């Protein structure tokens, strides 16, 4: 029974990692950028929810504001910071992403101070606990898993079946050939950032409901772990990000449950190192052939 309840716990955490990892992986797939500002967009989302809820006491509005805020912020960052570097070496893009990450953390600190703030988690998802047999499951766990799975199903449909989704796959496979089809690369990239940050917004609310404290460095560790999840699954691969997210979430909870909670973060990065040594392309990654 304990195992089962830990398993559900791990699925909840894993589904959040998966949502965040999807943003990493999709952006990498399309412009070969490890968007290290992704975690900080989630942090900003936490503040957006906090501020909106404090002002309106409306949980739905807080959720909408978070998602919209994350999307607007991510698109603005793409336009201002990444787009001018389209022809630049990839390392410049990576350094810029790290710069944006630091900028967002410091901006948050400037606006909201470095003190942690309590997140109104129970106002957004009421704290109700269901008892099934000897198992107790909170509503927040169920909502997190359900919302994440629904988002991933919707994303799969979008990417596999819609014209824009197919264009995204085409650009990610061969940017030049995609242009020759008449696909507008810039709008496809923007679209990818919109989807990635939309998922980040959802992830932000769910993460803050699980760990109801918001501070300017909230996104660092979450972002890094989601990045590990994306690499584990094979960066650039959408199903890979989902598998990687769940794997990291479950492993983390498992590690905690056997009494090694102090070691969970180290374990996550150990997993990354081992994976890079054994199979650098991840579970579902494509083998990298450098284009000439």
């Amino acid at each position: 029974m304990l195992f089962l309840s830990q398993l559900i716990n791990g699925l909840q955490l894993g589904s959040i990692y998966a949502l965040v990892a999807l943003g990493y992986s999709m952006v990498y797939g399309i412009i070969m950028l490890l968007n290290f500002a992704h975690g900080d967009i989630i942090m900003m989302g936490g503040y957006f929810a906090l501020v909106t809820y404090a002002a309106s006491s409306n949980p739905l509005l807080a959720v909408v504001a978070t998602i919209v805020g994350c999307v607007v912020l991510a698109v603005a960052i793409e336009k201002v910071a990444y787009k001018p570097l389209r022809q630049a070496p990839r390392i410049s893009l990576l350094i810029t992403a790290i710069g944006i990450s630091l900028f967002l953390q410091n901006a948050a600190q400037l606006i909201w101070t470095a003190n942690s703030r309590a997140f109104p988690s129970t106002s957004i998802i009421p704290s109700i606990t269901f008892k099934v047999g000897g198992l107790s499951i909170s509503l927040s766990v169920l909502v997190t898993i359900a919302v994440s799975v629904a988002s991933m199903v919707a994303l799969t449909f979008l990417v596999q079946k819609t014209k824009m989704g197919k264009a995204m796959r085409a650009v990610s496979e061969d940017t030049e050939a995609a242009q020759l089809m008449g696909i507008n690369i810039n709008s496809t990239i923007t679209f990818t950032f919109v989807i990635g940050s939309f998922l980040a917004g959802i992830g932000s609310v769910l993460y803050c409901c699980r760990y109801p404290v918001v501070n300017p460095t909230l996104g660092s560790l979450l972002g890094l772990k989601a990045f590990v999840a994306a690499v584990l699954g094979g960066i650039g691969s959408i199903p890979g990000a989902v598998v990687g997210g769940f794997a990291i979430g479950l492993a983390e909870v498992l590690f905690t449950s056997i009494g090694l909670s102090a070691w969970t973060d180290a374990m996550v990065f150990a997993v990354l190192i081992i994976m890079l040594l054994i199979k650098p392309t991840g579970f579902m990654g494509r083998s990298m052939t450098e284009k000439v």
Partner: protein
Amino acid sequence: MMLKVDDIHVYYGNIHAIKGISFDVNEGEIVSLIGANGAGKSTILKTISGLLRPKTGSIAFMDQDITKLDAHKIVHQGLAHVPEGRRIFLKMTVKENLEMGAFTKPEATKQDFDTVFERFPRLKERQSQVAGTLSGGEQQMLAMGRALMSAPKLLMLDEPSMGLAPILVEQIFDIIKTLHDAGTTILLVEQNAGMALEVASRAYVLETGSIILQGTGAELADSEDIKKAYLGG
């Protein structure tokens, strides 16, 4: 005049790859650009389709200046480019590849598919297969079929015979002739000079970024210089 390239100069960094090339393509023609590896043939096509920018010179398509137009907008004007090495989307299905070819339209219609399938029956059999599993010849057919989905006014083919067995080369050139007979204007780049001159209405011979000879396909095929340099005679 369908396509008019006027004195273009193209650079890769400091390398002066195209040194003032001018040529034109009239409606209903097959024009071939032939020349050795590195002569600049692919660079010219990439510059026409907007993937590269000329430093100076101009390109007009259907009497409209497209020199500075974005690559994706040029496709919308009715110019399709089948790039060197086919560049099909290997991880997508044959059908999805064709859908991408019709990206300029609101939606790929059944008629668009039927037209391509009629020309390339093999693609119909394999439409739900992932493109990466196709043979080289089938991939070339897919690349051409994909370009035809946009119903282009001008079709630019870059080395369609590259890496194919002689029997498949014959087949690809038969298709080129059929497309031409059906009214498609074609700009063809080839290393296989013999085949390229045979189908061409007119042809240009390139050497290290400049045009050194031009004429009708038959004239060039008979020229002693060409025979010696490109036709192994």
